[in-house]
């Protein structure tokens, strides 16, 4: 039985006593004092005049450099769109879902909000996003299909892509030179860029102790849903069954991949543990990591580092390469007031008009087909960035979104992995325990 909170249909038609009326009034006053009134139905009258519109938009930046890029994009959109001003709310990524949910519940959602595959399905299924299918009918053809697939569910489009960051590996050339080891690019050129050779390369550059220790490979295995997905897929494994009703993490293909990472942590000691990462958001930037998974946005963060950076694609597995993406789209939350202007903004962000600002900043990989070969994209690449790697990555992205209650499932796996990384639990047991805790998160 579904019903609005605190309304009991069983009481409908019951005569109202004075006590009941007084009680209801009292409760009403209390709740009115605690929260904002529900949003009124949309005004059907056309606007009398074109009053200036302030678009409230919520996104998260991953670094100070990233924040500036967003600021510039919104500023220029405001300048190019008379009567429109954009108010940018830079919400920390770990508080983003809470804040958006609270704003939606309060009836004060932003006009546009960032979307991420880790939780977008919860927002779509919870009817928190505006269906953009009809509005986007004439624009869909501009986009790379995988980028649309991320935001398509139940045959409808719920977000307009603006950022793509397909997976690749960033490596520290200086560390490899110092260790006298063959670097990943050279291994790739020789056709030897496999997962086994990645492990050997990591071992070769791991050195030192304590605060000066250099780690060969940073892959965040505690994040099963994103960082582990690529090696799992490349190993012909799957994280869930086809209809996403069960986690398939106890299968041999997944177990092998998790064991591989556990061995790198415990035997090779070439991967950092939670203790090593304490207080550091991305260890690679400190110059203490040989190789690390990266997305395009990280290229902004290594702009000022004092070591030489290189890039290489995903190693060869049993199949693939199949790459993941950490893409972002803009969604229009239900209850958004300025739908027309908001849609203009979200279309602008991933498109040709914003490219001289956004794409040129070096932050994203294009989400629109025409921009992949554009001069703006090519010029945005730093000397160490390789266009052919991005192109391969773009074409091999698998548009997978975290199903069910992602946060709950992630906590369950993190708890089990932490015991593995301490050597206090074997991998099959961890996966079995995690599956038991994670499967219920896929049920409605």
């Amino acid at each position, binding site marked *: 039985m579904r*019903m609005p*909170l605190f309304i009991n249909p069983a009481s409908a038609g019951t005569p109202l006593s004075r006590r009941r009326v007084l009680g209801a009034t009292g409760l009403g006053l209390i709740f009115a004092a*605690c929260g904002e009134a529900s949003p009124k139905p949309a005004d059907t009258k056309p606007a009398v005049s074109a009053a200036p519109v302030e678009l409230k938009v919520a996104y998260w930046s991953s670094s100070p450099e990233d924040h500036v890029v967003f600021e510039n994009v919104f500023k220029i959109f405001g300048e190019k769109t008379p009567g429109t001003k954009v108010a940018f709310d830079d919400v920390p990524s770990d508080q983003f879902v809470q804040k958006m949910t609270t704003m939606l519940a309060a009836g004060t959602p932003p006009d546009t909000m960032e979307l991420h595959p880790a939780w977008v399905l919860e927002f779509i299924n*919870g009817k928190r996003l505006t269906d953009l299918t009809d509005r986007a009918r004439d624009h869909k053809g501009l986009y790379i299909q995988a980028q649309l697939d991320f935001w398509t569910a139940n045959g409808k489009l719920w977000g307009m892509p603006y950022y793509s960051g397909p997976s690749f590996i960033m490596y520290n050339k200086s560390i490899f030179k110092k260790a006298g080891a063959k670097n990943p690019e050279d291994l790739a050129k020789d056709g030897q860029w496999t997962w086994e050779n990645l492990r050997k390369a990591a071992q070769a550059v791991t050195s030192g102790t304590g605060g000066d220790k250099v780690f060969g490979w940073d892959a965040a295995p505690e994040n099963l849903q994103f960082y582990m997905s690529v090696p799992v897929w490349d190993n012909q494994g799957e994280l869930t069954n086809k209809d996403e009703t069960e986690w398939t993490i106890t299968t041999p293909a997944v177990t092998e991949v998790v064991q591989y990472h556990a061995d790198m942590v415990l035997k090779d000691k070439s991967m950092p543990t939670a203790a090593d990462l304490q207080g550091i958001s991305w260890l690679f930037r400190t110059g203490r990591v040989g190789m690390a998974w990266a997305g395009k946005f990280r290229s902004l963060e290594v702009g000022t580092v004092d070591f030489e950076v290189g890039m290489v694609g995903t190693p060869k597995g049993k199949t693939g390469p199949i790459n993941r993406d950490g893409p972002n789209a803009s969604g229009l939350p239900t209850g958004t007031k300025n739908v027309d202007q908001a849609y203009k903004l979200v279309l602008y962000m991933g498109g040709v008009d914003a490219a001289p600002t956004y794409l040129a900043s070096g932050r994203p990989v294009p989400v629109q087909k025409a921009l992949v070969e554009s001069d703006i994209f090519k010029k945005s690449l730093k000397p160490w960035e390789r266009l052919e790697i991005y192109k391969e990555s773009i074409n091999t992205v698998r548009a997978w979104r975290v199903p069910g209650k992602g946060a709950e499932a992630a906590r369950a796996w993190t708890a089990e992995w932490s015991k593995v990384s301490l050597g206090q639990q074997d991998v099959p047991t961890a996966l079995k325990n995690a599956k038991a805790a994670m499967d219920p998160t896929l049920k409605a």
Partner: protein
Amino acid sequence: MTTIEGAPKANAQRPLSHPWFLPSVREAIDAYACIAVWLAGFSIFTVAPMVASLGIAMTKWDIIADAEFVWFANFARLASDPLVRVSSINTVFISFLSVPLHLIVALALALALNQKIRNILVYRTIFFLPSQMPLVASALMWMWIFNPDFGLANVGLTSVGLPPLKWLFDPSLSKPTIVLITLWGGVGTAMMIFLAGLQGIPEQLYEAASIDGAGSWATFRFVTVPMLSPVIFFNLIIGIISSFQAYFTLIYNTTQGGPGHATLIYVMYIFFKAFQDFQMGYAAALSWVLFTVVLALTGLQFLMARRWVHYEGGE
């Protein structure tokens, strides 16, 4: 002739026409008027949300969609949720370890700082200062101190030939480490309350004990402790309530409930259910169970207090 004294006498004899004019009633009205603003705030921001949360505890509700009324299903779910058991055990462990430790250390510090020595105010400030430090800053500082690779704690251990420990990153050590951290920031307030209590003990009781030939331990046992017992009781009540509720900030900023679920305390589990999983009904049910347990524990302490708490002028 009408005398001046006659008037009040006549007045005093006149019966009051309305009970509202009774001095006791007027006094009560004045008192309620004075606390009206606070009472309104308390009703709106504490009582009303509590009542609402009881209603929410009987629903399945994710804030956005309509709530589904499920009666006591959330409470029934508690019994079969393994993480409720784990987080309850962790909370009880931390509470039972930290409360006595806090009381003993705070009392010992208060006794030491109650001495008549030079610069005593400086020492009192030094020992009180950590309790005023922001919790997040304090948590980060202790994370570094207990870092297994380069933390000061392990530098200390290895310098005396002991093996380094993983501290917060070891499931078996993480809870005691958390208690150790809370000791640093948490004893200051209790210490100040003990100090105030110690300074309120009449000097003549110590003089009488001295004349009777009591040694320092006997004086402490038979004069200080009984006279301080109301203060000990107060700190005990506050300590237990805090230990069930107040370590969230520290644990959230250090271990986030890990490694494994070793430091997942009950209030953190409520937070995860409410603000990460948006299971508001279940989180409200968890909160009501916690409230009931804390209330019962406090009631039990009040019952037991009759045996050991001595109030001056009491029986």
